[in-house]
């Protein structure tokens, strides 16, 4: 069963689901990432302007993005359990636009942005991200993404990327168990 068909469980410190077929509990996001979300938001908001966030998660990065001076904040979310939470979170924020669906499905309806943060889960189109990314960025725009790999490389194979290294101590989980997080920074 694909991720967006799974029932998510929202806990105070994490979002999880259980894949009954293989009997595995998966963490989707956890609050130990707070520092990384803050740093990611800070990087893409350095120039202000229009910000695109792909994946809402626990609203950690979204909240940090809102703490910066920006014009607009577009959030794409495709999980049916997550969309209402994103809408509720955005209700009192005038510059937030919630776009429902897969980022790849809606990409042609989007604008171009000064900052972009890509952080999806169970994404069947993630291999297309490196190709699509340039079309979403303004000149001088800054992009980052959740980096599941350690060391100076990234899953998407995006070139000319620099990395800020953060020491982390995540509890054992299903998606990241290294002690250093390499925050990717790509400027167009």
């Amino acid at each position, binding site marked *: 069963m*694909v*991720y967006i068909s799974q029932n998510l469980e929202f806990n105070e410190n994490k979002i999880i689901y259980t*894949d009954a*077929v*293989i009997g*595995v*509990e*998966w963490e*989707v*996001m956890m609050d130990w990432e707070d520092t990384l979300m803050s740093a990611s938001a800070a990087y893409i908001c350095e120039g202000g302007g229009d910000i695109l966030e792909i994946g809402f998660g626990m609203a950690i990065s979204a909240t940090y993005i809102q703490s910066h001076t920006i014009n607009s904040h577009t959030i794409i979310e495709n999980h049916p359990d997550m969309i209402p939470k994103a809408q509720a979170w955005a209700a009192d924020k005038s510059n937030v636009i919630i776009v429902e669906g897969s980022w790849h499905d809606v990409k042609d309806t989007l604008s171009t942005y000064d900052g972009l943060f890509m*952080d*999806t*889960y*169970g*994404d*069947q189109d*993630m*291999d297309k991200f490196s190709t699509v990314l340039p079309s979403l960025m303004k000149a001088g725009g800054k992009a980052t*993404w*959740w*980096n*599941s*790999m350690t060391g100076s490389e990234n*899953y998407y194979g995006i070139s000319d990327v620099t990395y800020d290294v953060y020491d982390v101590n995540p509890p*054992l*989980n*299903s*998606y*990241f*168990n290294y002690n250093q997080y390499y925050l990717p920074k790509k400027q167009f």
Partner: protein
Amino acid sequence: MPNIYWSKNAIASIGPSGQSSYSGAREAAEDSSNTTNTTSTNAIVSGFIRTSSRGGAAFGFRRSYWGFDFTGYTEGTISNLKFNFKPSTGSTGTLSNRLAQFNGFGTEVGSNYSTGDWWDSIENPLVPYSNAFNSPDSTTVQAITLNSTAITDAGTDGFLKLVLMNTGDYNGIAVGVDQSNITNWNVGNNSTGNIYLSFDYEAPGYGNKVNSILPANVSQINGISNSNISQVIGV
């Protein structure tokens, strides 16, 4: 046609949870869990899972390891060697598998599998013992032909030790598409169960001198099958 049932077995797995590297999981120093000498029904004996996760993919592997004692069959000639198994109906996905050389279970088939055997005790580069074969989602007994390398190893060592791998594991290629391939078998016990080797066996020829000719030089006699001996007797 003799049958040899398994002497040792193990089912081991790693991931997919927490395993974001295909090769890192596949070639890990240790498995993350294992069961030895199982007789289970509907046991997952091989598997390969790739699932999209957070900013990448997660990979899971499951293998089973089998040891067979050929003591008593090392002097003669083994042929028509087959690996027999009974699938179950719990399987899912692409059920293509392959058998390859394994070096665990001690120098003979005397030791149980240990966690470090996961990858380190698989001959590398992989030495195939069979072509890829499909394990159907059924309970129909299957017989897989083992190649000449397996026959040689069985006869030379007196033990045949092999690993069952899903082709997603055997091929060593990190596919980019999510998939879940789970092969289930009914294992059974090690004397009358469902996992065994069958083969034809020809006992060695007469080991003493024949009219002063050394045994090593009577290959023409040694090579004659029983059905043709009447021609010799009739001389």
